[in-house]
């Protein structure tokens, strides 16, 4: 029975991606691993912008993850994107396969801040694309019913034609733990681009907006939000979501 439900959920999650498929996965990661937890996950981003080459840019990730032990969670993902060209958006295409790992560095609540590390490698599935190493410092602090999470990210492309500059960014989530089923919050996303370039504010991507988190059922978690672009480099709006089935 459990297996049948799992297949239904997976089919539903994958169907979300079919109509069509931003530049980056929009999930603020918590620094925790849950031993023995198996999960199927769909992550998506859809951009809305008056400029043709920035409108309808999409990225989808389909992942299977497992909590190997109490400090290591690993995931294998397929990434599909609809990318911008000079005057249009390409059709959705699977572009990368990613191996993602989260390492919990201390038991939750032992220290003033809960620390973790995220390490991932994206391998290209299409010729002329490059691979990428991604590292994040994950920090979380709960204060009463408010949970604050900070991710500090670094990306480095690898392979032929790769940009040798390291990109950096910051993402923040603060959420009010109203109930297990509904936690309203706010997210801020920033992409500094290459650290050495020291771009102006408007050349960097800055986004902020409301987000909602919680459980739909005992096994299904959601994370959905809408981000407003607050710099010229950002899309005017962006819908983001994460849906996961865990058991």
């Amino acid at each position, binding site marked *: 029975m459990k297996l049948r439900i799992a297949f239904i959920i997976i089919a539903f999650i994958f169907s979300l991606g079919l109509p069509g498929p931003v530049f980056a996965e929009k999930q603020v990661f918590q620094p925790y691993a849950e031993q023995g937890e198996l999960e199927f996950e769909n992550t998506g981003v859809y951009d809305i912008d008056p400029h043709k080459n920035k409108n309808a840019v999409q990225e989808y990730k389909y992942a299977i993850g497992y*909590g190997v032990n109490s400090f290591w969670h690993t995931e294998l993902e397929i990434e599909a994107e609809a990318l911008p060209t000079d005057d249009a958006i390409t059709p959705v295409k699977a572009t990368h396969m990613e191996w993602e790992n989260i390492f919990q560095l201390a*038991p*939750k*609540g032992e220290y003033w801040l809960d620390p973790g590390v995220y390490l991932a490698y994206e391998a290209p599935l299409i010729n002329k694309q490059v691979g990428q190493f991604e590292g994040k410092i994950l920090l979380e602090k709960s204060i009463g019913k408010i949970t604050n999470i900070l991710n500090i990210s670094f990306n480095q492309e690898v392979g032929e034609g790769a940009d040798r500059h390291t990109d950096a960014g910051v993402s*923040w989530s*603060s959420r009010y*733990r109203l109930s297990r089923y509904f936690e309203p919050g706010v997210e801020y996303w920033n992409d500094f681009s290459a650290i050495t370039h020291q771009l102006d504010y408007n050349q960097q991507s800055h986004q902020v907006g409301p987000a909602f988190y919680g459980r739909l059922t005992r096994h299904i978690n959601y994370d959905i939000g809408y981000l*407003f672009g*607050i710099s010229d480099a950002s899309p005017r709006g962006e819908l983001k979501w994460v849906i996961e089935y865990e058991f």
Partner: protein
Amino acid sequence: MIVRLIVYLVLGFCVWLPVLSLAQTQPANPAQASNIIVIKGHQFIPPQLTIPAGQKIQITVDNQDPTAEEFESFDLDREQVVEGNKKITVFIGPLKPGTYKYWADFHQDSKGVIVAQ
């Protein structure tokens, strides 16, 4: 410009929240105490554990069943798996005086409370 100002204010608030909270709730030198909750026959023993409020506490969850269990609490913001015949440490607090519910996620009829006073 106004939007940018709002963003900086929100971010500034978020950054300062932890500092303000630390000053209000955490004693300068928090005492720690050990407490044990046993899982046996898919039940929590004792079903009610009383701890001091305002202190960081270590709770040992000792699963004496052969099967894994998950210690879960929305009130305490904790969710930790404890394998069969193994123990885990759960760090909680400092808590305000009150009652905090928890349950076994794999056997949801099994419930307990932690009373901070």
